[in-house]
């Protein structure tokens, strides 16, 4: 019965950075939910309160920003998974 080595409490600066990048990546969908929930606050009551091209630009802008941040984060995250906080990956 082999036991996986106990994870150390403090990490090197580089692995620390990796952990935080992963945290950011995990938070991203929630940022997305908030961004995409904002249109709920738009109101179209009244005749001249029409959501026009600005609304369109907002939705697509937020969408693109989300993709861009996700792209930057995933390119920074090393695929090296031995430091996976969930333990050793491959059998």
């Amino acid at each position, binding site marked *: 019965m082999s036991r996986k080595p106990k994870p150390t409490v403090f990490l090197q600066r580089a692995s620390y950075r990796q952990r935080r990048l992963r945290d950011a990546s*995990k938070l991203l969908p929630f940022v997305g939910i908030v961004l995409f929930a904002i249109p709920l606050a738009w109101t179209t009551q009244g005749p001249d309160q029409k959501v*026009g091209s600005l609304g369109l630009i907002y939705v697509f802008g937020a969408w693109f920003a989300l993709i861009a941040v996700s792209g930057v984060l995933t390119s920074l995250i090393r695929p090296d998974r031995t430091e996976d906080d969930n333990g050793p990956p491959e059998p």
Partner: protein
Amino acid sequence: MSFNALIAIALGYVVFLFFIAFLAERRAKAGQNSWVSSPWIYTLSISIYCTAWTFYGAVGYAARSGLEFVTIYLGPTLVMVGWWWILRRLVRIGRAQRITSIADLVSSRFGKSTQLGMIVTVISVIAATPYIALQLQSVTLSFAVFAETGGANWNEADFNAAAVWTSVGLAVFTVIFGTRNLDANERHHGVVMAIAVEAVVKLLALVAVGVFVVWGIGGGPSEILDRIDNSDIVLWHNDGGRWISLIFLSAAAFLCLPRMYQVLVVENADERHLQIASWAFPLYLFVMSLFVVPIAVVGLDLMPPGSNPDLFVVTVPLSEGRDGLAVLSFLGGFSSATSMVIVATIALATMVSNHIVVPIWLRLQANQHAVMSGDVRHVILLSRRLTVAGILGLGYLYYRFSVGGTALATIGLISFTGTVQVLPAMIGGIFWRGATGIGAAAGLVTGLIVWLWTLFLPTFGTDAVISQAVMDHGLFGLSILRPEALFGISGLDPLVHGIFWSMLLNTAMFVICSLLTFPAPLERLQGAQFVNVFDHSTAAPAWTNAATGAEDLLIMSQRIMGSAEAQALFEQEALDQGKSGYLPEVTPTFIEKLERELAGSVGAATAHAMILQLIGGSSVSVEDLIAVADEAAQILEYSNRLEAKSKEQESTARALRAANEKLTALSIQKDAFLSQISHELRTPMTSIRSFSDILREGEMSQDEYRRYAAIIHAEAERLTRLLDDLLDLAVLEHGQVVLREQTGRMSDLLDRALGAAGLQDGVLKVVRDPKTEDVVLTTDLDRLVQVFINLISNARKYCDAKKPQLKIKVTREGQTCTVDFIDNGSGIAPEKRALIFEKFSRVADGSKAGGAGLGLAICREIMQRLGGDVTYVAHKSGASFRVRLPHVQRVDALEET
């Protein structure tokens, strides 16, 4: 552009796809698949999410409902961006357990249950049928557009013929490339390559139309934005419920659609590809939808009123005379439809054959043993091929009988809602160990029924399945069962209403039944493996050494995997075991490996059942498996405990060393004390004896007689005091003392102590601050005074200053009160401080004080009884003792100790 030319182009395109698929298969076979299995191909293959519904329907959707169309892409974007949460887990589980489909995932998780696999398969097939119909509809509609510009006016028969021919063509392609390999877990390189090419074609087509509309017709982005502002299109409806529901729905469907599971998990070659796809696929979606609103707006402007906005992508270029662009756009739509249908039918065929056909076939053959001549492979392959045809047939029938005019998006969303019924069981299964098979089944069936009633059956139109009377007044006249207003809630949009009730009741049944039932052992084992997949990717239940011969297993495996592959597997295993020949030893590990290999072909439930059939009675019971797992867990825990113990021992050893030093010092002290105490006891005894001897002799004056008696009395008193102290200490230490609670003022206590400490000689000067002493205490005051007396008389006895002085300082801090006794002598040497509170320890040599070294020990015991303590505080000048006592003392608890 004649219609025949279009047919020729479409056929040419199909031949091209065949060629690509064939080439990819060949390269893969030759081992040069590094290129085929790249993250970009993976990303492109995921784009089968964008079906013809996306390609044509999105524009129509935007024309009708404005921005709402993006919800269909925002959901998947959120899922992909949050890949770390769910997708990574799904892919890992899929690889570790060799999962072949979403039905297999659910079945496998809940104890390899055949019934659950069947339920999920049935739901998926029902939900996919309208969707496939939708693809046929869009392809035939786009054909019709070209036919009409060619002058022909299509009647219903023409539409049907087009739909039939499209279905047949799709079935042929899928059967040829999708059901080649039996191992559903193996990647379909040809199909993946073809759909990747199609993904590029549809992206290019939509972008080309978009660019043409924005720059060719509109005159640039800013003009288009003006046009949007001035057009009649309503971008935002005040319906937040729909917006949020649809984002949720599309996110959930992205995870639950069988075809998405197929490309996301089964065709995934490397977990790291997910990382690239996590942003690349949302980007694809982004580009796909970027031009949708401009096309819709320009289409609404250009096209005559009443024309179908679903077809703007084709009709706008046609109306501007851009035939080439229109054909490209047609090919884009065609690609979207075909790639979706191909992958969906492959995924569904795998599910139907593994979870419905094979289990039934196995049951029919139950009387014959699984070891027999003949090949199961052809049964499975045939069933898959028939299923492909059957599903396309169902799609065609739905197309024929449903309301043809319903907008594409509506059917698509209803189909999504059906698929999403798997979500609670799936998410619950991979995150919650308490989820049980009964709970999953209850949730799935409930969700299916609610969905059928509220959304699916009404799509056939009024009076087709559900009569208008039932729609208006509910089933059996019960108004709470109205399809579009369950439980009397009628204010909701029908779709939101359906999503809300089906998901709510589904999840509620799943959770409640899971909480109430107890899972079977295999379920618990699988549950642990799924939920903790990142902890142990390999752990699996073990078969005990079975009596079955390797030959029987080989025969069975050959029937499923094909003889060459099965033999290769067995030979390799024999080699690994160090045996010559082709039959390995039947070890539990080998059976487990074999089961997993077979699961890749026929699904976990069937593979498990087949192995079970062969190994028969000699297989271990599941309870045994649990025991094995428990044992392993125990070993793990034991080793954990050992590690903790060894750490504990280290610290204990350190503590022991310190204690040993202290003990040695104490032992020396004790020896010193013993000689001291014997001396102390002897001296009074000797004088008592000798003086009492003299008294016995008599013959002395009255004066002498009285003097001697006084000496005897004094010595006896000294003895008594010594014995009293010892007794007091013993009583305190054994906790038999009863404390008497009283309330008094600190200043009175100190007065009493000073009065009793024998300071009448005036040698020791006492400094007090009466203001701070105004503290009311409730505790055993007599005992406290005893402590004070002890400390004051110690100062009197040991303070070696020329003008001895004792400072008594009272401090109150919150609930605690401290009293410091500070003298101006030389204090206590550091090496002796550790011992002063021990029994029989004496700081001063000799018997200057006449005590036995018990005073401070008694003080400490008393203070501990009172809930406080007394400590020695190193002070700049002289000795300082600090008595700390809780301000309010509760005594009743102390009496019991």
